[in-house]
């Protein structure tokens, strides 16, 4: 069987297309690469959707937390505290549990117990909380002159936020937010590991990697393949975020940026 056949048989196996059964013996590198790569579809699906939707909730929550009115501040603080304060697998556990009882009561909630929706919701809330804290920290380090000038020109509320606060906040938050995006993609590996059941052997990259590790008893092939895929994914994230970062920092004098470089200074 050539690698092309394997690709057509297993390329979309994580979504339930192609061969019904996973390979069971004579494992080839190609099989492992294809199946683990197929699993990446889920990691990207979860990561991307949670990241994009979480961004908006995060910004709203960060603003809420910095609001002087406790009506906005308190809920935001509690939301951040609970989701940032507890491990993801506990969130998965309780979410799965809650979704199940909801499903028992009202059948329309049935999709919630499937990973594609249930786990996505948990990841969405989780990343929103972490990002909100990052954005809040950035909000707090905005130079006061910028805000003052906006105030003085009668900019307020939404206008001031959209034009002055938000761009500066993003610029300051970006490096940490990049980290959070990466963490989120990594966290997607926990969905089938400790959260939701995998149905008919449709799982994410880690699911297939551990399948192979379990069958071949050799962790040194499937996990590095997994790591390789994730490095590619992360480099893409870093690249994309880096482009945005350049855009956010375009006002800093170019010459200076290149010039002020310091040597390795570990010892005083």
């Amino acid at each position, binding site marked *: 069987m050539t690698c092309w056949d394997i690709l057509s048989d297993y390329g979309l196996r994580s979504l339930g297309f192609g061969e019904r059964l996973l390979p069971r013996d004579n494992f080839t590198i190609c099989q492992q690469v294809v199946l683990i790569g197929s699993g990446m579809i889920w990691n990207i699906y979860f990561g991307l959707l949670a990241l994009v939707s979480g961004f908006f909730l995060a910004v709203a929550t960060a603003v809420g937390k910095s609001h002087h009115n406790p009506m906005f501040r308190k809920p935001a603080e509690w939301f951040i505290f609970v989701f940032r304060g507890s491990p993801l697998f506990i969130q998965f556990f309780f979410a799965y549990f809650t979704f199940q009882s909801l499903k028992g009561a009202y059948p329309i909630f049935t999709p919630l117990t499937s990973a594609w929706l249930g786990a996505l919701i948990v990841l969405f809330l989780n990343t929103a909380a972490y990002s909100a804290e990052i954005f809040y920290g950035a909000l707090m*380090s*905005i130079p006061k002159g910028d805000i003052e000038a906006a105030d003085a020109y009668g900019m307020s509320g939404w206008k001031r936020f959209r034009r002055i606060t938000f761009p500066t906040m993003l610029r300051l938050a970006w490096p940490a937010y990049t980290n959070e995006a990466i963490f989120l993609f990594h966290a997607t590996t926990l969905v089938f590991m400790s959260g939701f059941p995998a149905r008919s052997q449709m799982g994410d990259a880690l699911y297939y990697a551990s399948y192979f590790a379990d069958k071949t008893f050799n962790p040194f092939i499937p996990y590095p393949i997994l790591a390789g895929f994730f490095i590619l994914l992360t480099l893409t994230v870093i690249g994309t975020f880096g482009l945005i970062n350049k855009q956010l920092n375009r006002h800093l004098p170019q010459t200076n940026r290149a010039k002020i470089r*310091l040597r390795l200074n570990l010892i005083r």
Partner: protein
Amino acid sequence: MAAIFSFCSDPASLEGIEWLSCYLTTGKHLGIYWSIGTVLLLLAITAPVALFFGFAGASAARSRILPIAWFGKGYTAIVRGVPDIAFFLFFVIALDQFFEWIRHEVKCPDWDMPIRQGNDFVVCPEAKLPLGTAPQWVHETYGFSLAVLTFAIVFGAFAANVLSGAMRAVPHAQLETAEAYGMTQRQTFWRVLVPQMWVYALPGLSNLWMVLIKATPLLFLLGVEDIVYWARELGATKTAKFTDYPHGDWRMWYFLALLVFYLGFTKVSEVVLDKIMSRLTRGQATAAGEAQRKAAA
């Protein structure tokens, strides 16, 4: 088994609070209490080490000497790329084998068998880490140290990213002034850049800390029993056959207890981080400094 309370000798006859107090003091439960200490110790050691790695990585990435800069950038980009769980599933074993291989080369130069025998990794007995005859606690300590090292490498990469972002956020004029006053690059770095970068770095670092706190369940992959392992184990359904304290699926309650533990720990962390932050923003021309001033007014 030596029970803590004398009335625990016949658990089947107990009820209510007495049953519970006996249940919660079984040797198994002492295991979970002990593991809390393990987790805290791990965090207490890992955090500074990871910060150091991060600092070194960030400084290296800024270096003018290209190979050092590449190393710093490569470290932050590559290590950040790999999910920590994958790290624990293969990297730690590789690391362990690497150490043993080094020891093997040093201690058993006359060893004539290959190190790789089929699937097996075999070094001479003197090279084993820890020695096969060492008591269990040495093995656990070794696993623990490997965990610290791995966590530090992984989280150090993220810390490096946060710190280099923070270094870039320090206004250029501040560094330039230092140079104008004849400070060496080293002095500028330590006297101006480093003190000022924390304000920008702290939010990102505190996020890392929060993630690190929650990464401890990975410890069990190295054979170190942490609280999550114990909560899963203790919460699982227990039939009367194998225990004096049978119960149904209690994971819910154990996870709730874990939740409380993590939330409490988070709260404490937040209080401490807030203190540090308010110290750093005192008198600064930022939104936080301004809020602080207005609040104090």
